[in-house]
Every structure is written in structure tokens, then in C-alpha cells.
């Protein structure tokens, strides 16, 4: 059926569907005629979805809409979501984690443990940096050592604390010696901190210049950055993983949710990150766009500064957790796009305890614990950003109201993201704040232990049993032992609540229908042949 042909008033279902597929009938029309044919609304909608016109494009440019601007291009100096989306595409890691959760070769083609504390990585040959320099094992050694160099004070200095030293005996081999047997080492190399940066270039121009004009091995290379507006990258024609099928990738900064959605619906951007549940349906039902999501490999928690009273009292924190109606938050604020956590381990990770029930909601019990703790009404500050994490401010307000209901003096303070980043670095949070720890290894070691361990980014609370178990579990090769250790650590966690887990949500993206993209559950936004392409006619 051609676009210009007119349909009979009551076509057959077949004709109607054919017309829809050809783009000859708008959505509302379709529903009207379907109704005339006696097809119920639900069935009609299913038909619409299933038979969606296969939209294609000739665009040579992919525009990604983010919730904020880049602050740093240097992958070792920022782990902020807006930055890593760019750095994961400018740079490669030795090991690559695909959306299916498995590890695949990256800049290293194979690896094996040659001794209990030694891993051998074979380096991919023939790879060039964006400026033409050849890539070799020296770059890998340089990158890893750079992360923990005390003089440089990188943001990722705790990612590789298990590594003792790195050797690059020849340009094609890297030997990593760990302090103790570390079965998770390849997984550690796959996430942020493990991006490989160019030794020669950085040594020549210095870190500041490198940050201003980054050079990597990734599928796109840096062209320009207009502050608070956009970052323009162009495709790397010699990318070892295969050139991506667009010429340019542009990251635009659109902080307002509504504006980002509007931009997507109007076709101004092709991919939208941080699609909030309130807009999910709208994007999904729009004729030219769809929403796609995956359960986040991580948790949304309220991290607690357990050093300041009254947060130094376990009973108070237990009450805070008991007062949160997670089911209502999941159902209403997230419209069901998430699950209530049962502890500090994300579902999908190793050693996730399926026997534990979701964290309880019991306001009565919360009030009693507060009484027992002798809580005197000291203010509890929720320092939140607005729009940096999905639903951050609404959740803060909802939880503040829930806490007020049980007698906690909750105060919400809104911060700009840069101020939050500063407080994060300086450890100057006044009470609780939102954190979205990512389970970088698919294992509790990569989330709970990485962040809450002594010297870790969220080291506000210590407990001897917890610390001992965490350390032991990290280096044990006995999965059964590790499982038991994490069970015990969970029990300690649920008594002291260094975090108050709130939700394990879906990470949703809005896409134009001609973009095929499979998101990675750990927020690793990558544009490579194996997970994204444009549908061409």
C-alpha cells in the first residue's frame, strides 16, 4: 500500500496493519479504525508495537543527550557519569565487559594466571593512538601505575590496590603481579580506572594538556568541546574493533529532564540517557522513539556519614532504614522500574543472597528504635543534587517526609553537582547523600568492599569483623568461603547501615527507533560495533 492511497473506512485488520507498517496512517488514526473494527485498545497497542514501521536513517551523526556537561576528559580524574560516558569511548580497556556481563578481549587479546599472584596479558598488535603513535605494553604499564601514583592524586587510586607491580617485558606482554591471589583482576581492568592512556603523549605534553586534548585508542577521537554545550568526537577510521557506522558522535549537555525528553521527541538527539520513569511511557509510545532499559548493576543508596551524631548510633540508622517505604518508592516514583534491595549486594552479582527478603518497612518499629537510641531531634541532612541522578530530588523529598513521619528531623538541602563532587572528595557531607555505587566486577568485592573498605571513597565507618572478612574474601579463591564471608558482612551491614539502600533501579535510555543499542547494566555507555548501530535503509 502506498503512502498516498486512501484507506477504506473499515479496512480489514491486515490492510490496516500494512498501512501502519508503511507509515501511511498516524497512530491516532490507527487506533480509531482499530476500534471501529472491534479491536480493543490493549490489543491495538500491541499491534502498534509489534508492527512498528522499521524506521531507518541516513544520518552520519549520533547525538547523545546527557544530563550535564563534561568536567574532565582524563579518565583517571573523574568517575562522574557524564564523564565516563565520554571516556569509555575515547579510550579502551585491556579487558572489555559486554552487555551480556561477560569479559571479552579489549586491548589485551588473552590473559591467564601463570602463577598464584601473577597474571599475563597478551597485548593486541597493530593498534595506534589517535595521534598516530603505536600502542604497546609500555602504555598499559604506564596507565596502571598512573592510577595509584600518590603525586598525581587520581580519582581512581583505589581501583587497583590489589596490584603490587606491573611489568612490560616486551611490547606484546604485560605481567601484573598482585599482592595476594586476586581472581577478579581481569574484571577490575574492565571498568573505570582501567582505561589505557598514552605514555609518550602524556609525558610530552603533561596532564593538563592531555585533559584539554585527549588522545586514546577508542572508536571515537576528540574534536572539540564547547563548555556547557557539547563535545564533538569523530569516528576513528582505524579502530581495531571496527569503525563505527557514523562519522561523528556528539555529546550534548541538556540538564533538564523535560528538555532532554523534548529534544529526543523532536529528533534533536538520537540517544537520551537518564530517562526518568515519569517519561518512560511517553518516550515508548511516541511513534519515532522507544525506551530501552536494563536492571542497573548497582544500587541507589543514601550513603551515611557515620561519624557525625546522631548518625554514629546504629539504632538511629536502623530506624532510618525501617522508615523508608521502598515499595511505594519503587511503585510510584519509579513506576515499577526497579526492585527493592535486600542488602548491600546487587541482584545479578555473585553471592546475591536470594533468601534475604527486601529491606523492611516498619514505621512503628522505627519509632521504637529511635526512642531506644535516645534520639533528641538532631537534624539529619539529606544533601542531594537535582537531576544528576534519576529521581534524586524527588526521592529525597519523599524520604524526608517518611522520616518526619517517624519523628526524625530530616532536612533536604539541594546542591549543585560540582559542590557535591567537592564534598565527595573532601569528605565533608553533613549527613546522608545519594550515591549510585556500581558493581563494577559483578561481585560484592567491586561494590560493597571497594567503596566501604578502609581508605575507600566512602570510608566513614569501620568495623573489625567487616574489615577482616572483606579483606579475606577479596583474595580467596574459594567461592564457598567468599559466599559465607559476604553473608556475615551483610549481617554486620544490616546492623550498622553505612549505606541505606533504597532501590535497585532500571537504567533507562530513550532512543530514536533507527538506533539499535544494547545498554550495559553497569552504566558503561559504549558505542562500539558489538552493541550499537544505526538502522540503514
Amino acid at each position, binding site marked *: 500500500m502506498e503512502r498516498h492511497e486512501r484507506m477504506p473506512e473499515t479496512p480489514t485488520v491486515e490492510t490496516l496493519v500494512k498501512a501502519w507498517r508503511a507509515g501511511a496512517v498516524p497512530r491516532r488514526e490507527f487506533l480509531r479504525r482499530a476500534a471501529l473494527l472491534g479491536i480493543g485498545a490493549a490489543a491495538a497497542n500491541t499491534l502498534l508495537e509489534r508492527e512498528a514501521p522499521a524506521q531507518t536513517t541516513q544520518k552520519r551523526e549520533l547525538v547523545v543527550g546527557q544530563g550535564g556537561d563534561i568536567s574532565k576528559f582524563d579518565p583517571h580524574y573523574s568517575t562522574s557519569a557524564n564523564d565516563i560516558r565520554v571516556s569509555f569511548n575515547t579510550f579502551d580497556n585491556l579487558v572489555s565487559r559486554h552487555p551480556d556481563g561477560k569479559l571479552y578481549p579489549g586491548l589485551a587479546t588473552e590473559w591467564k594466571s601463570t602463577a598464584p599472584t601473577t597474571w599475563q596479558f597478551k597485548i593486541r598488535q597493530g593498534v595506534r593512538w589517535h595521534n598516530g603513535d603505536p600502542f604497546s605494553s609500555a602504555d598499559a604499564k604506564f596507565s596502571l601505575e598512573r592510577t595509584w601514583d600518590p603525586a598525581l592524586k587520581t580519582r581512581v587510586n583505589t581501583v587497583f590496590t590489589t596490584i603490587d607491580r606491573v611489568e612490560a617485558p616486551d611490547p606484546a606482554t604485560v605481567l601484573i603481579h598482585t599482592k595476594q591471589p586476586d581472581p577478579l583482576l581481569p574484571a577490575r581492568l574492565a571498568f573505570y580506572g582501567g582505561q589505557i592512556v598514552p605514555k609518550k603523549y602524556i609525558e610530552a605534553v603533561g596532564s593538563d594538556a592531555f585533559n584539554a586534548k585527549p588522545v586514546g585508542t577508542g572508536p571515537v577521537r576528540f574534536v572539540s568541546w564547547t563548555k556547557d554545550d557539547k563535545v564533538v568526537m569523530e569516528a576513528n577510521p582505524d579502530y581495531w574493533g571496527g569503525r563505527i557506522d557514523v562519522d561523528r558522535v556528539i555529546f550534548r549537555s541538556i540538564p533538564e*529532564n523535560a528538555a532532554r525528553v523534548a529534544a529526543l521527541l523532536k529528533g534533536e538527539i538520537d540517544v537520551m540517557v537518564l530517562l526518568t520513569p515519569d517519561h518512560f511511557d511517553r518516550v515508548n509510545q511516541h511513534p519515532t522513539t522507544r525506551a530501552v532499559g536494563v536492571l542497573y548493576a548497582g544500587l541507589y543508596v543514601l550513603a551515611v556519614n557515620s561519624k557525625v551524631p546522631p548518625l554514629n548510633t546504629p539504632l538511629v540508622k536502623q530506624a532510618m532504614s525501617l522508615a523508608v517505604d521502598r515499595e*511505594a*518508592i519503587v511503585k510510584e516514583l519509579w513506576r515499577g522500574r526497579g526492585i527493592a534491595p535486600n542488602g548491600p549486594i546487587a541482584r545479578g552479582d555473585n553471592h546475591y543472597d536470594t533468601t534475604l527478603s527486601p529491606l523492611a518497612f516498619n514505621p512503628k518499629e522505627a519509632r521504637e528504635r529511635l526512642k531506644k537510641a535516645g534520639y533528641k531531634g538532631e537534624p539529619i541532612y539529606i544533601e542531594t543534587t537535582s537531576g544528576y541522578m534519576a529521581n534524586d530530588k524527588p526521592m529525597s523529598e519523599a524520604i524526608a517526609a517518611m522520616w518526619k513521619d517517624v519523628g526524625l528531623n530530616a532536612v533536604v*538541602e539541594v546542591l549543585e553537582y560540582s559542590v557535591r563532587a567537592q564534598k565527595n572528595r573532601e569528605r565533608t557531607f553533613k549527613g546522608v547523600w545519594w550515591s549510585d555505587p556500581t558493581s563494577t566486577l559483578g561481585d560484592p568485592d567491586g561494590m560493597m568492599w571497594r567503596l566501604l573498605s578502609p581508605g575507600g571513597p566512602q570510608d566513614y565507618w569501620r568495623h573489625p569483623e567487616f574489615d577482616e572478612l572483606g579483606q579475606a574474601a577479596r583474595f580467596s579463591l574459594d567461592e564457598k568461603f567468599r559466599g559465607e564471608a559476604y553473608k556475615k558482612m551483610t549481617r554486620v551491614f544490616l546492623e550498622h547501615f553505612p549505606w541505606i539502600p533504597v532501590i535497585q533501579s532500571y537504567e533507562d535510555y530513550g532512543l530514536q527507533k533507527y538506533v539499535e543499542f544494547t545498554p550495559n547494566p553497569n552504566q558503561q555507555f559504549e558505542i562500539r560495533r558489538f552493541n550499537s548501530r544505526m538502522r540503514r535503509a
Partner: protein
Amino acid sequence: MSRVFEQPAAVPLALPAVRRRRRRVPWLLITSGAFVGALAVVAVAAPYLAPQNPERGSLRARLVAPTLEASDGKAHPLGTDHLGRDVLSRVIYGTRVSLTIGFAAVAVGGLVGGLLGLLAGFRGGWLDEVIMTVADAQLAFPFILLAIGIIAVLGPSFPNLIVVVGLSGWVTYARVLRAQVLSLRRREFVDAIVGLGGSIPRVLLRHILPNVGSTLMVIATLELARAIVLEATLSFLGLGIQPPTPSWGGMIHEGREYLDTAWWISVAPGLILMLTSLVVSRTGDWLRDVLDPTLRGE
């Protein structure tokens, strides 16, 4: 933005002929007076008038369109916001913030401005020069930037807001009072009285205030409208009264996120704000036309 810009320093506009408005007088005054009075009543009686708790809503009834029967079984004539709070109740409570800060700021501005104007008029000389230069500096400057800067440093509390919003408008009062004093001094009898030992406060009471009384009323009315709008603007920028306390500007700010799905969150308080500003400033305009047309070209 200051309405003062309608009255530039030395523009000799011809005086408008007195219009035959006397017939319409009572109507406009009564309506506007009633409106402001009603607002004041709403502000004071908010706890009794608001159908629901403005700070606590049911998450089950989020983003509900204006309706008489929502999923939480209650009526929401203006809908609910993103946390399920009743918008009507929040608008009612928001009246408190707007009127309190509005009136208080006008008082602060009036007192400070009046005092400085009198000082400038009486003392003259370098004090007068200084005060007028400061006035010029403030007028020539986007006050909102200064306001934002100060609030950002000192914090958005009621007293801070009242002082900052109040200080945004002292110049008009100062100018009027200074002009009044100067014109009286030209008539020399003020100096004579003072020379004979009469006290300045008495001069103030007997001669100056009666003359500026009506002018001050006009200015105060116009300033009230401006103060209410300035407070709402600061709240809209996140620098006003903080949530969960409802304020009109704050609600418009919160609703911005949901403009495409739940427009009533922003529009309801916005319309009330617009209406209030309209009525009050129209009253001020009319008062000025009737009581003191010279203000048009001071």
C-alpha cells in the same frame, strides 16, 4: 526589574489632565482592596482553608490532574504535584510567604529609604551627594544579581530575604522624601522653624508627612507588587524559602520539570502570582493617577 524605571530622574512630561474617573473610582478600589484583603485572609487562615496537608502527600496520587476524585480518594481541584501533595493547599499556604515577605520588605524599604531621603534632604551637602550616588549606583545595576549573590552567601532565610528584597526598593522612597524636604526647605519656613528652636520630628510630622502621605501610599503599593514578584523570582531560582515550605515561586520551579506531563503544578501558582501582581500594581497605578499625577514625571 524595577518599576522605578517608569519614573526617570528628570523627565518633564506634561502633566496629564485630570481624567474624569471619579465615577469609576469606587469600583476599582473596592475590587482590588477586596482581592488583597481576601489574600490576607487566606494567608492568615491557611490552616483552616487548605483542604489538605501542603507538605505531605500520598505517593500513590502523584502528578494527578485536577480532579474531584483521585486515587487517594480525595478531591484535588488543582491537581497534585510530583510527591502527591495537593496543589491547592500549597498555593494557599504559599500566600503566607508571598504576603509576609512582600509587606515586610516594603516596610524595610520604606523605612530605610525614607530615612535616607530625609537625611539627604535635610543635611544636603556631601551626605546628599553620597546618598544620591549610591541610589544611582543601585538603579544602574541588575539588582537581581546582587540579591542572588548575597542570598547565596548568607543563606535563604526569612530575615535575609526580607532585608534583601526590602533593600531593592529603597531608592524611590528616598527620592520622593528628599524632593519633598527640598521643596519645603525652599519655602524657607522649615529653616525658620528650626532656627526658632522647633524640633525636626515635629516638622516631620506636621509638614512633611502629610504632604508625602499619599505619594508614599502610591509607592508602597507599587513596591508591594514588585517585592512579591522579586521574592517569587528568587524562589524560582532556588534561592527563596526552601522546600518543603510552599512558596509560589518555588512551586513554579518544581513544576518546571513536569511541564509536559503535569503543567498545573507550575501554572496554578503562576496564575495566582500574576493576578496578585496585576491587581496590586493596577491599584498602584490608579492611586497614582488620582492622588499624585506628578509622580509620572517626578
